[in-house]
């Protein structure tokens, strides 16, 4: 559709994005009274925008227009973004190296309708020379290759907040807004208030990051952190060592289920090691470093918090959430013996190598219960390859489980593990909403990969802790 003249689409990318100078950025980084979110938004704030407060600091509650470093859409939001862009008559995008389209949700295409939408995305990326990724979950791909501390990442997917695990400001928006970012490289954001969560103590064997975040969601409710930034802190190095990048990714990802806008881990030696081992790169454009903008940002000592929370990891038991709402959280004992038809290990919330490792550890030498089907889905091609290399895939197959390609399929009930009428599933995926994985009458319970694997063996919801005692 040619609605606007080509001059309007050609005029705006030219002058809109302006970076702040180094001294401005340094003074914001050093400011002692700002939270992580306040610092990052001020650093990314477009200084030429009409926002009234361009020369003053934007604080929690203010609206700022920010420059965006990476703008992602996937195969269930990208087609609508492309449609909106076409309806607006915009045929140029601001910076193709910052535009990422990922085909992950119904990959490979489950039917003709999906295939046509995938085709629309491929045609778009080829026309605009932006980044196309197929067959890895977007959030995992961003974590493995693109996200860097201090980046501003927007994605047309609610779990975009996963990249908070490396200290990026990463949050979800809708399709038409991502189209606007593709066109201009910027968007308005409200600066969120912040809740600081201090972690102390050590997990019992068989208890994991997923149990921690489910516990927190159960305490605060599905809107308990709505519009807020979560800043996670470790009370000492001992606590810190329990939180690998995979565990941090799980928490940042699942923070969406209590409405958080972003969920941020401090950049430390664990982050730096991860970034060293997984270089930031964007092969598609032969652009070997699309993220040469790393800025370590730490909240100031006198920053203002909306709330401060203390969580003792040692007090957390394996948690099971559901059905129908993520904040319906129980200890595993309360639901033990509930029979299940399916056990699913995977998704962007818990489909990383650490998750596949614990599943393999429990399934090794054991059989999936005869009345239960068990599906294991890695979060990315990288995780898939590593699972093969480490011999986990053989373990799954010998136990009677199915190992699929990396996709969001089962988590959203679109393919590779949908549920029938009145079926019950225990799942390490992100959500248990009505009809999420298939039939409206099916029930989904969420738990850590360890709890899911133990349940797969027993054919009912089971406490994973006993699988760790003998080893």
């Amino acid at each position, binding site marked *: 559709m040619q*609605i*606007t*003249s080509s001059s*309007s689409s050609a005029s*705006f990318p030219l002058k*809109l994005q302006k970076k702040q100078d180094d001294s401005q950025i340094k003074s914001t980084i050093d400011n002692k009274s700002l939270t992580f979110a306040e610092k990052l938004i001020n650093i990314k704030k477009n200084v030429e*925008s*009409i926002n009234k407060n361009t020369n003053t600091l934007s604080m929690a509650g203010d*609206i700022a*227009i920010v420059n965006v470093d990476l703008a992602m859409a996937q*195969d*269930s*939001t990208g*087609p*609508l973004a492309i*449609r*909106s862009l076409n*309806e*607006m*008559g*915009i045929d140029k995008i601001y910076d193709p190296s910052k535009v990422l389209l990922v085909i992950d*949700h*119904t990959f490979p295409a489950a*039917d003709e*309708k*999906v295939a046509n*939408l995938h085709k*629309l995305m491929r045609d778009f990326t080829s026309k605009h020379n932006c980044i196309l990724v197929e067959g890895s979950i977007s959030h995992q791909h961003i974590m493995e290759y693109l996200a860097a501390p201090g980046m501003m990442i927007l*994605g*047309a*997917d*609610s779990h975009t907040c996963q990249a908070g695990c490396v200290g990026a400001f990463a949050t*979800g*928006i*809708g*399709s*038409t*807004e991502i189209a*606007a970012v593709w*066109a*201009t490289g910027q*968007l*308005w954001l409200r600066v969120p208030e912040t809740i600081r969560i201090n972690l102390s103590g050590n997990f019992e064997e068989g208890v994991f990051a997923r149990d921690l975040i489910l516990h927190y969601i159960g305490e605060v409710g*599905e*809107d308990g952190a*709505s*519009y807020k930034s979560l800043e996670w802190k470790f009370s000492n190095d001992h606590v810190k060592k329990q939180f690998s990048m995979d565990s941090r990714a799980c928490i940042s990802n699942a923070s969406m289920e209590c*409405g958080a*806008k972003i969920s941020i881990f401090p950049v430390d030696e664990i982050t730096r090691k991860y970034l060293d081992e997984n270089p930031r790169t964007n092969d598609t454009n032969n652009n070997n470093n699309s993220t040469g903008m790393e800025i370590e940002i730490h909240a100031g000592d006198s920053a203002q918090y909306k709330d401060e929370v203390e969580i003792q990891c040692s007090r957390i038991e394996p948690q099971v959430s559901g059905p129908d*709402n993520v904040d319906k959280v129980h200890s595993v004992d309360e639901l033990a013996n509930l029979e299940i038809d399916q056990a699913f290990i995977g998704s962007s919330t818990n489909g990383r190598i650490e998750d596949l490792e614990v599943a393999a550890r429990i399934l090794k030498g054991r059989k999936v219960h005869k009345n239960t089907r068990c599906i294991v889905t890695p979060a990315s091609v990288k995780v898939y390859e590593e699972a093969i290399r480490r011999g986990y895939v053989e373990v799954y197959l010998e136990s009677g489980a199915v190992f699929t390609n990396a996709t969001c399929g089962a988590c*959203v*009930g*679109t393919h590779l593990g*949908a549920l029938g009428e009145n079926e019950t599933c225990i799942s390490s995926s992100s*959500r248990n*909403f*009505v*009809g*999420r994985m298939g039939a*409206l009458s099916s029930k989904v319970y969420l738990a850590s990969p360890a709890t899911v694997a133990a349940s797969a063996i027993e054919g009912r919801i089971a406490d994973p802790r006993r699988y760790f005692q003998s080893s």
Partner: protein
Amino acid sequence: MSEEQKQPTSIGITKGKAWIFGDNINTDIIIPFRFKSRTNDPYEMAKYAMYGYDPDFHKKISNGDLIVAGRNFGGGSSREQAPVALKYAGISAVIAQSFARIFYRNSFTIGLPALEIPEIKGKVNQGDELAVDIAKFSVYNLRSRETFQAAAVPTFMRQMLKEGGLVEYYKKYGRFPWV
């Protein structure tokens, strides 16, 4: 088998019948993934509006009807298809005690009025006729004769809504409202 296509109501003062919902009506209830991910046509999306609550919801509502809900309406996924499905099914506005962040943004972006009114709880019955004044951002209950004022939003969001959403705004002005 031809489905009657309901036209989205124009923005101004809109009147309609209230449909009452509780807390935490998430986007999987509003439109399940497996339907929204297989079409790019808003009228097709409309056939699944509130499918998780009642697959026939789109047939039961009349053009201009409103949704009145509790806390955290539209939680969960970022799917813009959720407000799109409601709008093209004929829903003229959503009133809730509170909204989930992305749904709220998306509603303004696609031109579906979303009015946050914490005190609405218990003040509207199923089937009450309501009038929504988009200019004043208020709701009038014709049965109880009570008026409720919605939480204020930035001017550019109201302007976007007035034009029917971001796409319509851009088509008219050749720029985005926050620039």
